[in-house]
């Protein structure tokens, strides 16, 4: 006790205490604040960089969400140099080194967006504010994509859209911080139109059933334009609520409308339900106006085709990508995804995987995570080897310009995954369009907002 009393006066305790506090905890914060000031949102200062995955794990597009998550986990493994490297070796040109992004190991956080715009925004905000995500990616609905993209623009975080097909995402609602690899409804219409004309003739009456949100609206418009240019007549276009489950009340009027083509502007579970019910109504066996009744599903995916089973046989649609393509990129990705999860990837998985790699590559080329520089690296970037042929990230609207696939439900499937066959690969030039037709404004990149 005496020793303590002699050695430690009140002043001395305070002095050493303060010195200790300043030395260990506070000083580094105070001194580094100037040198390492966070000049942009979530500047990664440690040895990891966090990506925020916003995925619809419940709701109408849950199946796509689950597949997207697998693709992201695979992409992050490959970026960190684990696994077989996948498309890392095939991206042309590539600055990726397989040691994370800019030497930092890639980590991720997830959030269930429930296929709802509101929830998606809340999830994205959480991942940015709490978990320090440097980039947000994912989503399987254009409603979500448009909502989250707006949020990311406000927070100064780059958004790499997952599956979103609405024209608005890179049209009227385009944002400087939002990027889309997936194709859009307009391109679907342009690619699908000629094939439909060839198969079903110039004199048809079409009836649209449309999912009632941004994607459905633009897809309906694009399909109307494409089919009316062929000489088809649009009998009616009816909007159906997202996630309706039962479409019989919308299908009954089709039978008496005099239409001989039903165009289903539905996706995910909605499309599986509406198509199955349409087939149960006997629509595909009917003859109207002396012609065989036909159903068209402008946007197709393997997951939906599997869900709809034999009902999908012979039905035309479009896809962003298909695992059965024969180029090296597609084969490498299908192999590496199949090895990890035992099933071929869907187009949603593909677009998400590619988006992750493209973001990482852009950071490497820019040499920084600073969003305005990354945006510059992505804008107007021409690349190849990702399974879609030569692709351009267009600077004017952040839309990837690449080939579009016209697909059809396989008539005689050889395996449970052989559900779609590629009818035609429509070239990038044929689906090119002027970005100005949809209006919209990207907004500024700088000053980068600080979340």
């Amino acid at each position, binding site marked *: 006790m005496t020793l303590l009393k002699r050695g430690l006066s009140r002043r001395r305790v305070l002095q050493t205490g303060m010195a200790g506090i300043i030395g260990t905890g506070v000083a580094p914060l105070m001194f580094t604040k100037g040198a390492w000031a966070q000049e942009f949102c979530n500047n990664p200062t440690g040895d990891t960089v966090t990506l925020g995955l916003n995925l619809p794990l419940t709701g109408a597009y849950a199946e796509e969400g689950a597949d997207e998550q697998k693709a992201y986990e695979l992409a992050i493994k490959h970026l960190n140099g684990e696994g077989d490297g996948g498309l890392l070796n095939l991206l042309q040109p590539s600055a990726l080194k397989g040691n994370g992004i800019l030497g930092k190991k890639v980590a991720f956080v*997830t959030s269930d967006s429930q296929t709802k715009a509101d929830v998606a925004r809340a999830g994205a*905000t959480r991942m940015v*504010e709490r978990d320090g995500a440097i980039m947000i990616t994912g989503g399987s609905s254009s409603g979500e994509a448009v909502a989250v993209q707006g949020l990311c623009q406000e927070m100064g975080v780059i958004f790499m859209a997952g599956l979103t097909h609405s024209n608005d995402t890179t049209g009227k609602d385009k944002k400087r911080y939002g990027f889309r690899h997936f194709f859009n409804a307009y391109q679907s219409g342009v690619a699908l139109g000629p094939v439909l004309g060839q198969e079903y003739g110039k004199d048809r009456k079409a009836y649209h059933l449309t999912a*009632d949100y*941004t994607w459905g609206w633009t897809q309906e418009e694009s399909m109307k334009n494409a089919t009316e240019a062929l000489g088809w007549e649009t009998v009616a276009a009816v909007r159906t*609520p997202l996630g309706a489950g039962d479409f019989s009340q919308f299908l009954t009027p089709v039978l008496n409308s005099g239409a001989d083509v039903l165009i289903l502007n539905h996706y995910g579970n909605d499309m599986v339900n509406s198509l199955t019910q349409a087939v149960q109504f006997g629509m595909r066996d009917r003859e109207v106006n002396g012609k065989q009744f036909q159903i068209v599903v402008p946007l197709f995916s393997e997951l939906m085709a599997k869900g709809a089973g034999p009902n999908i046989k012979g039905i035309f649609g479009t896809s962003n990508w298909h695992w059965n393509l024969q180029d090296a990129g597609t084969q490498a990705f299908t192999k590496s995804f199949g090895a990890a999860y035992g099933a071929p990837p869907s187009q949603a998985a593909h677009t998400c995987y590619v988006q992750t790699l493209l973001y990482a590559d852009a950071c490497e080329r820019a040499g920084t995570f600073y969003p305005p520089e990354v945006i510059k690296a992505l804008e107007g970037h021409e690349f190849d080897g990702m399974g879609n042929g030569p692709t351009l990230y267009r600077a004017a609207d952040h839309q990837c310009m690449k080939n579009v696939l016209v697909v059809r439900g396989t008539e005689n499937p050889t395996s449970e995954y052989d559900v779609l066959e590629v009818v035609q690969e429509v070239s990038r030039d044929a689906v090119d369009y002027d970005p100005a037709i949809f209006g919209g404004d990207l907004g500024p990149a700088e000053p980068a907002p600080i*979340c």
Partner: protein
Amino acid sequence: MLAMPRKDLILFLGFAAAVLAMPIWLQPFGAAYPDLLNRFAIFAIFAVGFNILFGLTGYLSFGHAAFFGVGSYAAVWSFKLLSMDAVPALLFAVIISGLFALAIGFLSLRRSGIYFSILTLAFAQMSYNLAYSVFTPITNGETGLQLSLNDKRYLDRMFFEAGAGLPSPTLFGVTLSGYVAFYFCAFFLIATFFIAQRVTGSPFGMMLKGIKSNQTRMNYTGVNTRPYTLAAFVISGMYAGLAGALLAITDPLAGAERMQWTASGEVVLMTILGGAGTLVGPVIGAWLIKYFENIFSAINDGILSQFWGFLPEGAQHTAVLISSKFVGEGWFLTLGLVFVLIVVFLPGGVMEGVRRIASMIRPNKPTPASADSSATKPHPAE
């Protein structure tokens, strides 16, 4: 107005301190980030308002999300047409949702009990469907109403030119984001809590409690109860509108799903979980549910395997497999279990648990709380 009973004053000051210190004491729970704190404050306002109707009069409305949604839409339209300032948005939202509540309440309050609940549910679902499809030009349907670069903003344009990019909501020029937005919401939570406290203690509040315990008797004594219930309905509708507007201020987007019946059910859950009829209960219920929704739903297998890391390999795998069903997208399951447990063992909600613990600590002191609890005992069957 300042002549509050000492107990009320302590409750109010304690509540205010707890709310303002939320960024500190929520840190260990991983919930101290502005967006979730905003939600805590906003949904607490919503629940406190709901409790004025349900807790005091016993009228169980299953359609309060409609007012919440209307508040959001009104606020976003104020941003689009008038100004990015929060004050006109709040005023506009509270007035519109109040009028909306007046109309719906006027019709629904002709019935009581289950019929009233069904009527409000029907009106809310009608509003939801209108917002979802019929009124698409006003609500932008499923996509949700958002700000755009070519909005008019007449009031703002009178004073200054539009800047580059999308503007954010402001309060007299101060941008409302991050912790500024939280303290803005927290101010409203404390203010509305104060109002609710005053309403509960006022003669008007006594009338409402009277209606809850026996409306027929009230009628026989010559009191016309309908104006009182209508007033309570409109007040709680305005609370919901205020909460909806605050949500639109912290995140300028309004979607139709805010008006869905699940959102209405959520506020009922919040109130019952926390303790209907109490002041603090609904707030605690709102925080619990939002915590579950935002934190539990974000736990994935990776975090779980870290959590169970101390177990041997095989046991860790099993533990992760079992617990993963209760977190992530399975958070509803956990919430459901908690709700069942609370309703079975603590019918008065979390607050009843608090009271029981308090009476255990002070067993010999007959607290007025025990008398209170029998008066405000909720009726889960309603």
